[in-house]
């Protein structure tokens, strides 16, 4: 990756200025033309170095309900249980982690009532208990990876 791409990524993780010509303002800070910034951003998105460029929403503010959940899944049943859990459209993402609690997923529903319902359905379907760990307070969210 070229040095200027690294600087673009680092600068634009912090946020674009909310002005009439935002790319021109950011380009000026970076010491390049607006045209170059836009073409490099397009290339970074096309190659998958950036997964997205745009407003980052606070999902709770959009009216949804979210809950982090954990399960301790026996190794021999892991693939089968992963399939069962992932089949629920409310499961937004699911990660395997190295721990006794080895399956961690996020439920995204339209209402808190629906979260409780899906939790019960997953427990019934898999025969395993689910820990529900909803967010109580947020201190920071966002990535500031150094490119």
């Amino acid at each position, binding site marked *: 990756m070229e040095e200027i791409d690294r600087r673009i*990524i680092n600068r634009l*993780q912090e946020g674009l200025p909310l002005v009439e010509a935002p790319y021109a303002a950011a380009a000026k800070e970076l010491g390049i033309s607006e045209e170059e910034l836009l073409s490099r951003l397009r290339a*970074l998105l096309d190659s998958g170095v950036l997964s997205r460029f745009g407003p*980052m929403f606070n999902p709770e*503010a959009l009216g*949804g309900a979210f809950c982090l959940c954990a399960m301790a899944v026996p190794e021999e049943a892991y693939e089968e249980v992963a399939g069962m859990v992932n089949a629920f459209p409310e499961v937004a993402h699911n990660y395997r982690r190295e721990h006794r609690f080895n399956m961690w997923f996020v439920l*995204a529903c339209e209402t808190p009532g629906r979260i409780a319902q899906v939790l019960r359905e997953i427990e019934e379907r898999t025969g395993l208990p689910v820990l529900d760990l*909803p967010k109580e*307070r947020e*201190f920071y969210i966002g990535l500031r990876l150094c490119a």
Partner: protein
Amino acid sequence: MSRIDPIDRRLIEATQGGLPLVPRPWEVLAGELGLEPAEVLRRVRSLHSRGVIRRVAAVPNHYALGYRANAMTVWDLPDERVAEVGERLGALEFVSHCYQRPRRLPEWRYNLFVMVHGRDRQETERQIGQLKELIGGDARAFDVLYSSRILKKTGLRLADPGRPE
């Protein structure tokens, strides 16, 4: 959390896929939504000041940037210490998420979740060492859960307000 009106909602839907990569992105959105460009910018600023939009920013792919050692660290802190410690840890460059969550005793004793990202485990272990130093005597216990596989990843999408429960 503040309310969003139907026009805000349409603006959010129009930008979920990303901001147009053109010199005047608000004009493009205004054209799509039948609004004045100044109105679009005013609404984006208002959503930002109310915390509905955290920022308009680039989201890098961890793996493409070489970050392969992603760990969820979990800490058992006295409840009255969580706010202060959480604010301090959330300000660190290598922390992407920092949340307070409920304990689920006896199975789960940890109430602070801090996600850290390193290029390899050595770097991540150094970051965890820094967390330990900052937390100092406040932590009664902690654990580290490295992610080893993504089983599913679909973006969070705006819920359809018209759909019945």
